[in-house]
């Protein structure tokens, strides 16, 4: 794996010192020989990848390749059929619910649609994890929440309800919520989809800034090649259930593989078919395929 070969060269913020212990290695998450299927449809087969500590790792791939599914497997929202997912040296399949929840407190996740709790204000959404997991006073919670909202530029929207927010604002609030517990690992599921150029620029800069200043490790699932190239230290390109290529965005650009070139340059023709498997077009239009 190209990405793993470069481990140790990444930036490390002061915040990450608290994570350091002799047991820890630069491999934060390892996916080993992963096999996962939905019914008869195979999603992953013998997938191997490593997420490095302190880096921004991008997981890219054409639509329908299972990028979000991979995130759900990494966070054990789904359980693999075969293979292992190791987080900080622990196989997450072996954790009981309490241990899993303890582990998840180290994660922050930004969902594709924000997934804000619709019956709570923006402030209460961000305060939610603090109220659930800490015994901080209301005054302190207010300070923390306003700090996080300020970081995403939405301190002024604290009293608004989720239904009053635009898509970009909702995602920024979700980002504030994802980082309110100071997680070690931030996971972004398609953070750039449907954003206007301004919101997208803001999110891209936020991702980079937070990762560096807070010493986080980030995983971004996306198929926005240009934005990923701006922020990712390492990218994995997934296709047909396996890692088709990996490396820094520059390295991927230089790859000669047809699949990588097709994906990176957005070409219609290539190993990834634009059309889903279907009967002959002409035959179907003429009704000859009907029995």
């Amino acid at each position: 794996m190209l990405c793993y070969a470069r481990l140790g060269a990444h930036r490390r913020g002061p915040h990450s010192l608290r994570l350091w212990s002799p047991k820890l290695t630069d491999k934060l998450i390892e996916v080993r020989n992963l096999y996962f299927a939905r019914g008869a449809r195979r999603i992953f087969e013998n997938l191997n990848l490593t997420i490095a500590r302190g880096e921004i790792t991008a997981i890219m791939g054409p639509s329908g390749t299972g990028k979000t599914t991979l995130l759900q497997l990494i966070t054990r929202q789904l359980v693999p059929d075969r293979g292992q997912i190791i987080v900080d040296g622990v196989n997450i399949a072996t954790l009981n619910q309490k241990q899993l929840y303890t582990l998840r407190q180290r994660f922050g996740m930004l969902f594709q649609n924000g997934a804000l709790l619709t019956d709570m204000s923006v402030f209460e959404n961000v305060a939610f994890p603090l109220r659930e997991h800490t015994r901080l006073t209301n005054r302190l919670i207010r300070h923390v929440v306003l700090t996080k909202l300020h970081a995403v530029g939405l301190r002024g929207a604290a009293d608004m309800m989720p239904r009053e927010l635009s898509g970009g604002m909702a995602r920024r609030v979700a980002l504030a919520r994802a980082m309110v517990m100071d997680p070690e690992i931030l996971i972004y599921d398609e953070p750039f989809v449907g954003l206007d150029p301004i919101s997208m620029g803001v999110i891209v800069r936020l991702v980079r800034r937070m990762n560096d200043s807070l010493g986080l490790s980030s995983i971004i699932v996306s198929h926005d090649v240009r934005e990923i190239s701006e922020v990712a230290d390492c990218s994995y390109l997934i296709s047909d259930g396996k890692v088709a290529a990996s490396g820094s965005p520059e390295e991927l650009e230089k790859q000669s593989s047809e699949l990588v070139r097709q994906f990176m340059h957005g070409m219609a023709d290539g190993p990834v078919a634009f059309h889903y498997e279907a009967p002959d077009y002409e035959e179907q239009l003429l009704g000859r395929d009907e029995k």
Partner: protein
Amino acid sequence: MLRDLYITLTGFLRTFGAMNLFFLQLLRYTPVTLVKRFRLVIWQVHNAGALSIVIIMVCGLFVGGVLGLQAYSNLERFNAEDTVGIFVAFALAKEIGPVITALLFAGRAGTTLASEIGLMKATDQLAAMEMMAVNPVHRVVVPRFLGGVISMPILTGVFTMVGLLGGHLVAVEMLGVDVGAFWQQMQQTLDLEDVNEGIIKSFVFGVVASLVAVWEGYNAIPTAEGVGRATTRTVVVTAIAVLILDFMITAIVL
């Protein structure tokens, strides 16, 4: 055909078993929820109970009125119109009060619970809670379930009392039954056991209606169509379950 029957039967048994396990999970979290999330439970009592009170009162008033009319028109033939109060009270306290309240509860509060939880699932809110290390069953489902269970006997009580008032208005005020006879006969004939039967039924129906609603919502297919189907199933399954249980409880108590 036998194969279809087999598939349907095993599917039903699997769902029934899973629902029972889900119920045990709710019971497991109930003591902690009552202690740590009491405010959420109260809020859900408000949502399921207080917000249903108008519809319950309106229906109770008219059902009581209809019972008064029917009782009067039949008992009059035997010169027994003074016993209208007994008929209305028995019907409301033992059968009609708990059953109709449960059906109304399924239509008003049950559908709200199912669609609310289903939509939370469809919009990843439950998954987001999981990722924030908050158990959605504990945080979202149990308070709603308890809110329904607590609300049902109260709503049944309201329905029955307003129904008696409806019966009084029709029988006494409109049809001229003696007011003293109406209430006196009722007081003398209706035992605490009869009232208890209604209370037991309302509690059981509350558990069933709330369980079906939260189960359907929690297991809804996370799409608009899936949530719609879950909402419909909530009403249908609750109605069937309530009527079957009503028969069973009545048979046991009698």
